């Protein structure tokens, strides 16, 4: 080890490790909240364990070492040898940061050798040194062991979902199967070696064997060879369950946790049963079995002496009572575990999904976009000819393409949870930074958005949260003076509204005073005093999003970049606030910004696209007139202001326009004059190059059927 590992493996490792880190990021704040939560501790333990193993295989010794030490700490907590404190959690957070740092290092240099982990390792060592006396065990050793097995099985990584199905039955006899987890040293070896290994019993296995003897069972070595099917692991569990029902399974090679790695499809089982023919019967019921062999094993082969048997027999009655008691407890626990299993099963199904590189998904997505374009082009050509057969085929083709498009869009949807889950930790960091106490709550984290949209949303969202903690939430003493709870609250609520997600972020701090904002905006020279006078409260609050805005004390600076980011996504931002009660930011974001139904209009000879979401209707211009300086048009008995769209865009707008598109801005209808209305079309939105990203009034571009680039307008931002 130590040489640079294969790039491909490294990438796989990094991808997986990042997943682990993400989960850890989610789990640690949970642990901080409830330090007794054994489920969380176990999960963290498991993740650290996997990380240690994976890193170890690639020779990333520092990562492996650090994860190992963290695992040790968690193991001690789990086994109640150490009581978890806030300091421990903090330390774990730092371990996480360090791991993250090392992953970046690995990404860059393919090794973690340069990382310095000595300090943090020392701290972990110190923490480990303070071992506490164990508290009295809650359940009997055996029950613990059984539960341990259930837990392990539930959390075991290579669990195929079938195991869970089998598990329901297995649970009846799991007490018998539990040993498979315990034996570690088993590998695929030759027959005699198998015997040697199979008959070498650990202490626990030995206990088991003695129990079986006391019940009058006999030992058999059963060799099963399965057909080479992917269901092999499941079949293995079925076999164990069935044989287990006859008596007791002492040991298997390979063990339960290793079986999925074996390539021989052969297992050797040491079992204790009443009669051989019962075993033969059961073997017939095991599916996909290629060969079956059972051979009696004398107790001497197992190294068991006669006197051990008699000693065992005496305590058997006690043991039976104990076992009964144990089973009862296990049943209780099992009921609980089942709900956990259901959860785990869902997760495992998630794991069962195929990992697709985001890049290929994007490529697929673009290709489908192109396909939609080709479809329109084809339709345009075909419409010139009257060939019934082709029209039918085209209709089918169009349907298939749109289904394909829907499906690809769905594939790209990611629940908000992916962003939300990083927030608690971020908030706890911010709380420390600004010396405030803040709780954060979520609703609607299951609501999905396009991956790209979500990615681009994360940054402004995090920024907003920082601004809220910084400028809105008061320090604890100020809050209690105001009669508020000392701990501030930030609440994120997402709901779906048609093709948009409404995300509100609100906090219960100082609020924003609209009058103060107005004064300040004038003072900074951002808007003339005359404009401000007429502004309503909500409009005034939007002044905070002007570049360069901040209150005298510097508060509420940086909102401009948030607004810009949201608008780049095709979304909108609104601000509401009640002084000393609440501050609410409302984001309206399209679920997917990839395709768009647009109205195509012509200005001069150039077509432009306007998203239909911002269009109320289109009209032919007949009733034009003017009121004072302003041009107006009559629409449904109302007088609307009319602007020449070409003029707003700064293109020559001299021609007399015949049509108008009616849009709504802040509740008021406005008419935009255009030369021609071409109709509605589904367009694939392509981003404008970064250089042009901030060009006014543009939302992106698309490629028309003839290959020309057509700009997508954001008409609302053009209206003065």
């Amino acid at each position, binding site marked *: 080890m130590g040489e640079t590992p294969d790039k491909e493996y490294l990438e796989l490792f990094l991808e997986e490790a990042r997943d682990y880190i993400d989960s850890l990021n989610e789990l640690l704040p949970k642990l901080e909240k409830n330090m007794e939560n054994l489920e969380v501790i176990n999960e963290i333990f498991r993740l650290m364990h996997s990380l240690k193993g994976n890193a170890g295989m690639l020779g990333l010794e520092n990562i492996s070492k650090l994860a190992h030490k963290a695992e040790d700490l968690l193991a001690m907590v789990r086994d109640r040898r150490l009581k978890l404190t806030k300091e421990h959690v903090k330390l774990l957070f730092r371990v996480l940061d360090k791991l993250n740092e090392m992953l970046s290092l690995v990404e860059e240099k393919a090794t973690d050798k340069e990382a310095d982990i000595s300090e943090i390792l020392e701290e972990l060592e110190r923490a480990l040194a303070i071992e506490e006396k164990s508290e009295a065990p809650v359940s009997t050793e055996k029950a613990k062991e059984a539960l341990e097995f259930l837990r392990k099985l539930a959390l075991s990584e290579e669990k195929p979902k079938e195991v869970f199905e089998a598990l329901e039955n297995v649970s009846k006899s799991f007490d018998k199967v539990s040993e498979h987890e315990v034996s570690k040293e088993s590998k695929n070896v030759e027959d005699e070696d198998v015997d040697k290994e199979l008959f070498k019993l650990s202490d626990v296995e030995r206990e088991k064997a003695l129990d079986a003897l006391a019940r009058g069972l006999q030992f058999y070595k059963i060799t099963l060879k399965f057909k080479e099917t992917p269901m092999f692991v499941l079949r293995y569990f079925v076999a164990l369950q069935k044989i287990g029902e006859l008596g007791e399974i002492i040991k298997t090679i390979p063990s339960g946790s290793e079986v999925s790695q074996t390539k021989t499809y052969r297992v050797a089982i040491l079992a204790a049963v009443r009669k051989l023919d019962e075993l033969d019967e059961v073997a017939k019921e095991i599916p996909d079995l290629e060969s079956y062999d059972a051979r009696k094993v004398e107790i001497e082969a197992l190294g068991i002496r006669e006197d051990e048997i008699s000693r065992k027999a005496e305590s058997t009655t006690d043991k039976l009572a104990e076992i009964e008691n144990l089973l009862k407890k296990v049943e209780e626990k099992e009921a609980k575990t089942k709900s956990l299993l259901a959860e785990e099963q869902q997760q495992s199904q998630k794991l069962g999904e195929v990992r697709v590189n985001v890049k290929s998904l994007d490529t697929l997505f673009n290709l489908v976009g192109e396909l939609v374009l080709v479809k329109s082009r084809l339709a345009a050509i075909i419409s010139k000819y009257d060939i019934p057969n082709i029209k039918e085929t085209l209709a089918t083709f169009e349907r298939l393409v749109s289904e394909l498009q829907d499906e690809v869009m769905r594939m790209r949807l990611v629940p908000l949870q992916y962003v939300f889950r990083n927030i608690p930790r971020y908030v706890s960091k911010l709380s420390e930074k600004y010396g405030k106490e803040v709780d954060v709550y979520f609703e609607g984290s299951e609501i999905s958005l396009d991956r790209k949209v979500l990615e681009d949303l994360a940054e402004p969202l995090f920024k907003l949260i920082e601004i809220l903690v910084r400028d809105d939430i008061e320090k604890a003493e100020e809050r209690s003076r105001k009669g508020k709870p000392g701990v501030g609250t930030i609440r994120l609520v997402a709901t779906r509204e048609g093709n948009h997600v409404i995300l509100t972020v609100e906090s219960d701090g100082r609020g924003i005073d609209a009058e103060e904002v107005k004064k300040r905006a004038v003072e900074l020279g951002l808007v003339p005093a005359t404009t401000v006078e007429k502004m309503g409260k909500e409009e005034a609050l939007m002044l905070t999003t002007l570049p360069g805005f901040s209150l005298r004390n510097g508060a509420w600076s940086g909102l401009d970049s948030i607004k810009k980011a949201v608008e780049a996504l095709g979304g909108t931002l609104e601000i509401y606030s009640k002084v000393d009660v609440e501050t609410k930011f409302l984001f309206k974001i399209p679920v997917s910004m990839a395709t768009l139904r647009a109205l195509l209009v012509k200005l001069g000879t150039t077509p432009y696209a306007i998203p239909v979401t911002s269009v109320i209707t289109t009209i032919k211009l007949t009733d034009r007139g003017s009121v004072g300086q302003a041009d107006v048009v009559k629409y449904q008995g109302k007088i609307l202001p009319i602007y020449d769209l070409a003029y707003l865009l*700064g293109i020559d707008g001299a021609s007399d326009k015949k049509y108008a598109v009616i849009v709504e801005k802040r509740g008021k209808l406005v008419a935009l004059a255009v030369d021609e209305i071409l109709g509605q079309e589904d367009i694939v939105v*392509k981003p404008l190059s970064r*250089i042009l990203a901030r*060009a006014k*009034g543009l939302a992106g571009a698309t490629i028309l059927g003839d290959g*020309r680039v057509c700009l997508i307008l954001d008409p609302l931002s053009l209206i003065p």
Partner: protein
Amino acid sequence: MWGIDLKYVREVVRVKQYTIVPTTTEYVLGVFNLRGQIVPLLDISKILNVKRESSETAIILNYNEEAVGFSVDNVVGVISVSDNEMLPPPTEAGDYVKGVLRRDGELISILDTERVLETIEQAEITQ
């Protein structure tokens, strides 16, 4: 004659048609469709303060992992330049020249590509 460091150059294409982008500065001719990707077409002669006729030839450059097109009169060829051939730019050459060199009696100015693009980007933002 101008030179552009090959590390920026992706390809040379003919741009038959492009779409004018209103509300941009004079440096931006428009955008065009490069195999499904939308690429801005820039006229850097305005920045370099040189006169030129319009042409269909464009050099596609990589800028921050995005494609950007420079409209040019034509592409003469590729040459190798050793460091010691490069002379410091004469002060009157403006801010956008990294250095000059002499080849076959002709003076070639090496463009400070990043500087040019940063200037345009900045102009678009503050516009």
